[in-house]
């Protein structure tokens, strides 16, 4: 599993929809979906910064490391 994305939880906490967030940070909903489902290979600092700014959170709230063991 490794790194997991907790974007859904934060979106729920902030009461925001995915397409709304995608529009605000300037990425497509398809790309946001790739990020949410953990299919993304990497995330740009600029994207992470935008997400944190809009959702009032820290990068650690979005990204979580889970030990595979």
């Amino acid at each position, binding site marked *: 599993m490794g790194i997991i994305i907790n974007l859904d939880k934060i979106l729920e906490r902030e009461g925001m929809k995915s397409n709304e967030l995608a529009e605000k940070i300037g990425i497509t909903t398809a790309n946001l979906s790739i990020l949410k489902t953990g299919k993304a290979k*990497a995330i740009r600092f600029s994207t992470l910064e935008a997400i944190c700014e809009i959702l009032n959170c820290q990068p650690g709230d979005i990204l979580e490391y889970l030990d595979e063991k």
Partner: protein
Amino acid sequence: MKWHLSILKLISIVLIIVLILSAAINIFGAIQQFEFFNDLANSFYFKSYFPKRSFEYSLTGQIIFYAINALLFLYLAYGLRSAPKLISETSKENLFYQHQAIEIRKISSAIIVYAKLKFLLILCVGAFFLIAPFNIIGFIPSFLILYILGKVLILFSKIVEKGELIKQENELTI
């Protein structure tokens, strides 16, 4: 660039057609048992395989040579079948796509196998039927060109494989 790629695509298509036609000529030569080809024996094509000698060439040897040569031409034509598609994709700016490296590797192995088997065929026919054994020396440059081309294509396939991976990573970077 598109112009060059169009020419390259045309060359690859013509090459495949020429290989198929050459195979057909060889099959025809093997079937006709060279009655028809007696008149053509002095042509450039046949001289390149069978230079003039003071003795008669073995008929069995000639038939074996032409039959296997035809199969080799067909094998190379089959191996090169994905070359026009590869060039088309490049001209469409689709530089890296899935299975591209595998397709290039297939082309390169077809070229290498063809070069090796052709060399072996000339060597064996020369040794067993005394047909053009001295042509081995003449065939070395073309063998080396084909062999090196095949190896360069293997290297190219490795680059393309890495390129596809980088493209995928880039597309999945959000």
